[in-house]
């Protein structure tokens, strides 16, 4: 029997082109005995059903992965989320992580920054520098990226409602480093819809938030084409207690809403869709998680092609970041968390993630210590270099169980998306609390199983021990808040306040009209207008969302 013509076509087209552009990590991938490990294993009979539902890596419907060579070409990006205290402390942690072999930065901002308050705002009391780094103005951002060449690293920023402001600051810092915007690589989270249902760092009402987001899509496509303009996140939906299928459903429903908003604003699908990225949770049910990642990829490809008519393959590909599940970490016997994280990270790699953050063992107690962060990174490195799972593509494909679960999650999530749309769409479902209730119910049932002992959490409701020695915890000194407030006052003394006022006035007028806000925000941050000042201007025009 000759080679299947579809397989041959893939080898001669997608695969060949990929290998020409990016050679694989090694010439030969072999196991311990010297046998060759196949790039990707296929069924003997490649039939229509296989072609329709699984296909080839790097080819529609992308069930088997978004690149033709996957991790044989390059490992996933090992991207550890970090940031605490002030910009100088966080800069030190970033440089430590880069020295240890992390390959991309991921910035955690403190809550005041994420909600658009300056450090001296009364709302910020007690929260400055706690869960991330405090950024008030460009002056902080300059310190944060000191000696980090922005044309060499890719930077992910977990920032949503004020994403436009932090992105503008990033572009301004790059400019000062002599790096042109076109050379910048990275991601802003910019996914406000999930903030209303799960994470809580909203500022403006949904409609105004969608306007800012589409402004960002448009500005980025023209100015920083290498940046992912959004990271549509199921992570926090899952953390809030949803099931795996709900995570996929609500994430893709949000994604559909963003795409529709951008189309309504007159953007071309194949211009902005290729810079949409995703962010999922990796929880402990390894096989279900692998199926979830595969199902999400296939669903998105189908939605983009069939519903939105996207023809560029890059628009159809669901590229995603993964973080292991914070909610599964226990404060008891914290070393057990290393095992949990290993299983979860493995699911992400078997599921074809593009980048990965592994949680540290002590995160149920506080922000992680440097030592714990290193172990978390080492977990990824062991999976990459020692486990062998990165030597072949989508190795669980064709397992009866995995394929059945992939189909099941696709069906459940598709039905749930239809339910949301029949109920008026995401925005109206958020306003009526429909999505929140679905997540809450799933969370409640799950926790009841733990309370009753039906679901065993090792070290918590079974196999407990008395723990005498408490692990060291990382603390953010309360002095950070005071210092940050002083620094902010100094920035305000030394800038050209008239220019700031003029820039803010221009922004206000644009917000009241239809102009793209990005150029005006960029102008304001370059004059050292603060994050709080910019967000307050927008608050006066857009109003605020209340829970």
């Amino acid at each position: 029997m000759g080679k299947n013509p579809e397989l041959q076509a893939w080898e001669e087209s997608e695969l060949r082109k990929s290998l020409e552009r990016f050679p694989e990590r090694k010439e030969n991938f072999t196991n311990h005995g010297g046998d060759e490990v196949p790039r990707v294993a296929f069924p003997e009979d490649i039939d229509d059903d296989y072609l329709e539902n699984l296909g080839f890596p790097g080819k529609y419907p992308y069930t088997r992965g978004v690149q033709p060579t996957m991790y044989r070409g390059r490992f996933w990006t090992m991207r550890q989320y970090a940031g605490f205290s002030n910009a100088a402390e966080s800069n030190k942690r970033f440089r430590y992580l880069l020295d240890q072999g992390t390959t991309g930065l991921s910035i955690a901002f403190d809550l005041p920054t994420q909600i658009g308050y300056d450090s001296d705002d009364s709302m910020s009391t007690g929260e400055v520098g706690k869960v991330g780094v405090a950024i008030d103005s460009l002056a902080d951002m300059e310190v944060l990226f000191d000696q980090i060449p922005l044309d060499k690293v890719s930077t992910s920023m977990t920032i949503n409602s004020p994403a436009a402001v932090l992105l503008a600051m990033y572009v301004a810092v790059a400019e000062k480093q002599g790096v042109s915007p076109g050379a910048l690589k990275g991601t802003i989270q910019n996914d406000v819809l999930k903030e209303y249902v799960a994470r809580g760092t909203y500022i403006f009402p949904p409609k105004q938030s969608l306007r800012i987001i589409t402004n960002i899509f448009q500005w980025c496509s023209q100015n920083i084409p290498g940046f992912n303009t959004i990271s549509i996140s199921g992570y926090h939906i899952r953390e809030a207690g949803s099931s795996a299928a709900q995570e996929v459903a609500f994430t893709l429903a949000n994604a559909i809403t963003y795409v529709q908003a951008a189309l309504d604003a007159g953007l071309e699908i194949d211009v902005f869709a290729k810079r949409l990225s995703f962010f999922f949770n990796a929880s402990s049910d390894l096989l279900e998680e692998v199926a979830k990642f595969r199902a999400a990829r296939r669903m998105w490809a189908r939605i983009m092609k069939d519903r939105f008519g996207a023809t560029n393959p890059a628009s159809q590909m669901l590229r995603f970041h993964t973080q292991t599940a914070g909610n599964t970490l226990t404060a008891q016997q914290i070393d057990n968390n290393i095992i949990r994280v290993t299983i979860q990270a493995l699911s992400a790699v078997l599921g074809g993630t593009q980048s990965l953050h592994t949680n540290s063992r002590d995160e149920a107690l506080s922000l992680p210590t440097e030592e714990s962060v290193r172990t978390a990174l080492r977990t990824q490195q062991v999976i990459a270099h020692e486990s062998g799972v990165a030597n072949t593509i989508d190795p669980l494909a064709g397992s009866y169980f995995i394929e059945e679960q992939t189909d099941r999650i696709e069906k459940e999530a598709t039905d749930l998306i239809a339910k949301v749309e029949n109920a008026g769409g995401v925005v109206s479902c958020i306003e009526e609390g429909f999505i929140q209730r679905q997540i809450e119910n799933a969370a409640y049932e799950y926790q009841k199983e733990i309370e009753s002992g039906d679901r065993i959490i090792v070290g918590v409701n079974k196999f407990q021990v008395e723990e005498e020695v408490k692990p060291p915890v990382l603390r953010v000194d309360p002095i950070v808040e005071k210092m940050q407030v002083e620094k902010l006052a100094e920035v305000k003394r030394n800038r050209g306040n008239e220019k700031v006022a003029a820039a803010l006035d221009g922004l206000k007028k644009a917000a009241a009209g239809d102009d793209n806000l990005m150029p005006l925000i960029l102008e304001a941050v370059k004059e050292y207008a603060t994050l709080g000042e910019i967000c307050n201007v927008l608050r006066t025009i857009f109003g605020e969302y209340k829970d």
Partner: protein
Amino acid sequence: MAETTHRYRVLIGKPGLDGHDRGAKFIARALRDAGFEVVYTGIRRTPEEIAAAAVQEDVSAVGLSSLSGAHLRLFPAVVDALGKSGAGDIPVLGGGVIPDEDISHLKQAGIVEVFTPGTPVDQIIQAFQQACEAHQGS
């Protein structure tokens, strides 16, 4: 889960900017299932807003949740705000990502009970029951 004999009213509050309310919502619902009347404030409330709600709703206890590390500032601030509203007798309980060494500081500041991750819910319900009974008797 334990049933209460008297129907006490309690308030669950999220002070500060932390939006992680899976735990707070679970406790609110578990208390409801155990027979309490529960008012949940929603996320991102100031200590003053929480105290005002506690007074207005005439509750017998307040439960606070924070996972952002701001508990040492925010929990005592709620106790103070209750005192200033003339409701210093309402007991305040707290929970979240709280290092063990902070528990004694919080108790000194007037927080009657502090729950860390992994605490069985029955233990929390019981603590609310006792706090409400003590408040009733005071």
